[in-house]
């Protein structure tokens, strides 16, 4: 094949792996989408009634199971957790956002591993079976850490690795979307985290969606003022990232200017009057939590059985 075409296709593949997740983020999710999955909204379904501590334990169990078992158990958990997004407030939209986030993680992680993973590791993962080359990179790609060929096994390996992250990421967002920071704080205080730390954490959780909101405003105003006006149309989504970076300092200054009022508001309401706080509604363990515990026990049992049956972690992970 013509050297030029090989180079062209190679760079196209390189940019697909890099740019596709970014496009999903900008086109399908958007900054406001991120704002919505990082912000609590009141509702009444089971996740909202669950004790935040139980949600944290659920997240840890999901993480451990995905790490310990064969990839498809992680994939299965991802599908199940994603389906539970439909029970959230504005469930369809959250499901769609969760779906795109999963796609982004999957493609991003696959691409982060597939071209780089040394053949020795692939051989180990696939028990020494011959590697099937899909594409031969130009030799200078090795400077970027690429292996000489892009292999089917590399892609499969990358995909299987991604299944260790998708389920836990979705589960973690459930905690943020369905518990107020105060509820999380209550649970963390119970296990001994000082109120100063949990207060900072509440501020951080409250600030994350606001950062997206303000950056979104800043980016739109920059577009109005001509950002990306001379660039080709298809590059416009990438200017959102440029605008977001431009907007960071003014957004920080804007938030920090309001911080004094927030401090006064807390200090004049006896914040840190004592080492501990009491709560209007102390965290309790209800029916939903008991059911969740049953599921946790079940999942752990299934994991043990799966591992004993040989469905344990099938591939090495070179983090």
């Amino acid at each position: 094949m013509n050297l030029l075409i090989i180079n062209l296709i190679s760079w196209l593949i390189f940019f697909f792996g890099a740019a596709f997740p970014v496009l999903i983020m900008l086109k399908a999710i958007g900054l406001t989408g991120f704002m919505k999955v990082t912000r609590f909204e009141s509702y009444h379904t089971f996740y909202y009634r669950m004790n935040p501590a139980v949600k944290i334990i659920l997240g840890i169990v999901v993480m451990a199971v995905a790490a310990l078992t064969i990839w498809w158990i992680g994939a299965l958990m991802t599908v199940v957790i994603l389906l539970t997004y439909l029970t959230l407030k504005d469930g369809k939209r959250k499901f769609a956002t969760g779906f795109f986030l999963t796609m982004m993680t999957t493609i991003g992680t696959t691409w982060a591993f597939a071209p780089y993973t040394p053949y020795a590791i692939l051989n180990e993962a696939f028990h020494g079976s011959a590697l099937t080359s899909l594409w031969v990179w130009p030799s200078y790609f090795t400077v970027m850490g690429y292996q000489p060929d892009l292999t089917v096994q590399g892609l499969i390996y990358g995909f299987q690795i991604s299944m260790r992250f998708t389920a836990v990421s979705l589960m973690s967002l459930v905690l943020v979307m369905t518990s107020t920071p105060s509820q999380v704080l209550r649970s963390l205080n119970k296990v001994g985290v000082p109120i100063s730390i949990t207060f900072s954490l509440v501020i951080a959780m409250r600030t994350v969606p606001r950062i997206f909101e303000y950056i979104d405003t800043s980016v739109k105003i920059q577009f109005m003022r001509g950002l990306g006006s001379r660039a080709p149309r298809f590059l416009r989504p990438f200017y959102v990232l440029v605008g977001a970076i431009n907007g960071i300092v003014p957004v920080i200054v804007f938030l920090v200017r309001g911080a004094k009022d927030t401090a006064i508001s807390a200090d004049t309401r006896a914040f840190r009057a004592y080492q501990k706080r009491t709560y209007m509604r102390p965290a309790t363990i209800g029916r939903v939590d008991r059911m969740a515990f049953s599921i946790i026990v079940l999942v752990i049992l299934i994991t043990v059985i799966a591992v004993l049956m040989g469905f344990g972690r099938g591939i090495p992970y070179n983090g």
Partner: protein
Amino acid sequence: MKALEIKGLKFSYIGSEDSAIEIDHLSIEDGETVLITGKSGGGKSTLVNCITGIIPHAFHGEYEGTVEVYGQNVAETSLAKLSTEVGTVLQNPETQVLNYTVEEEVAFGPENLCLESDDIVSRVAEAIEITGISSLNERETYALSGGEMQRVAIAAVLSMRPKLLILDEPTSNIDPEGTAKVFEILKRLKEEKTLIVVEHKVERVLPFVDRIIVIDNGKIFLDIRSHDLIHHVDKMLEIGIEVPIHYIYARKNGIDSDDLDLIREKLREKGMIPASPLRARPARTVLRAAILVSTASGKPLADCSIDLEERHILAIMGRNGAGKTTFLKGVMGFLDTDLRSEVSIILDGRDISGEHIINRGREIAFVPQNFDLTLINKSVEREVAYSINKRKKKSYGNRLDELMDMFSLSDLRYRDPLSLSLGQRRRVAIASAIATDVRVIMFDEPTSGQDYFHKEALGRELVRLKEAGYSIIVVTHDSRFVYKYADRIVVLDKGKKVLDGTPEAVFHESWKYSVLPPSDFLLRSDEYELVNY
């Protein structure tokens, strides 16, 4: 019993040689309702911080003298202890509300006091009842309107059961309906608590207060009973404090009364009713925008068509949630993608409805309420030149210098825009928004939280822009500002246009939609009946 007694107070912030506040003696009796007023930066907030204990406990500096609240020396009493004696509600509810749900916010203080849960429940219920926010109980705080959020902030302070309640410009960021509700709460609390209201709009709070204290340059400039205000109008004006317009005319014409009807009657007898501000003549339509927006579930948010005439200042008013900001977003193409919308924008006869934000921005500029978010460059010059550099058109020639002159920014050319004063930052934001071929400028709530001095400066800037050929849309709650500077008003209600006309015409019935007419209008209007509002 004395609620507050200050003796020999002197405080200066770290790094400053001058005292931010210097008060020889001030006392406030239990049960009094006091207005503290003065220009921004005059020392009002410092005084409040000295009373609440924030100074010296949290903000430090050089501190002299004693401040006692209900007999307790503020400097020697912990903030936690003080918080049950004195409560503070601040200007911007967005920065003072900490929690995600209303109930959590109201319970925050009592929880910090480590009270039993039953006690917390009863305090929260009591505070929610007083402030009338039971319908908001399970809402997320970030989704509340400014007025609703401010009532939540008041409830969150009342749950601490303070004897002295300080409200620092509690209504400057909220709509008239929210303001009215806040004042309803104050009326109720007046019977039970000592109240200190800090406010630069004297007109709003006058009916509720017994006493007025004016702070200027960190010192007590005036300390008078409220019914004596009419005799001190000149002094108030001298230091730039906004007083009701009928007080000014009464004083000028030797009328010894603060009753608006009587003053108008006397002025009419003397033939001294002032003329209305000049309005621009009808002109050709430069922008015609028809916006139909609803949520994904079909809830209508805006369904209106508004025309903007050339070289006009058009004010869009209405209560929170009336559709004002949605209208602006529709014009600019900022609407969230999950909303359903049909938008038609005709600019100078051209349909630009399908244009991307980048192209709309060529001719339409937008200055958001949080205009600081638009200042992305490291120098004023680069900020103003941003659009010129991005769009790169030769025809811009000396545009940068023109703008620097027009907005008096030449001396600030190399300064960091973010470190300028509020007024300077706004001028940079406006100059940079209109740097290219802009014809229409839209401002979202530019008067919110601004004192008289800054609002007057803004008004003058708008007039200058109008004279320079720009057509302007301003979304605001400030009736007095609108009466003085706008050529036309559109009032929106539940997403629809309900009134459209000159301020003189619209203010006759705008009260139906929570847009209250200013005293400037009432003084001049024969037909308007005060009973209406």
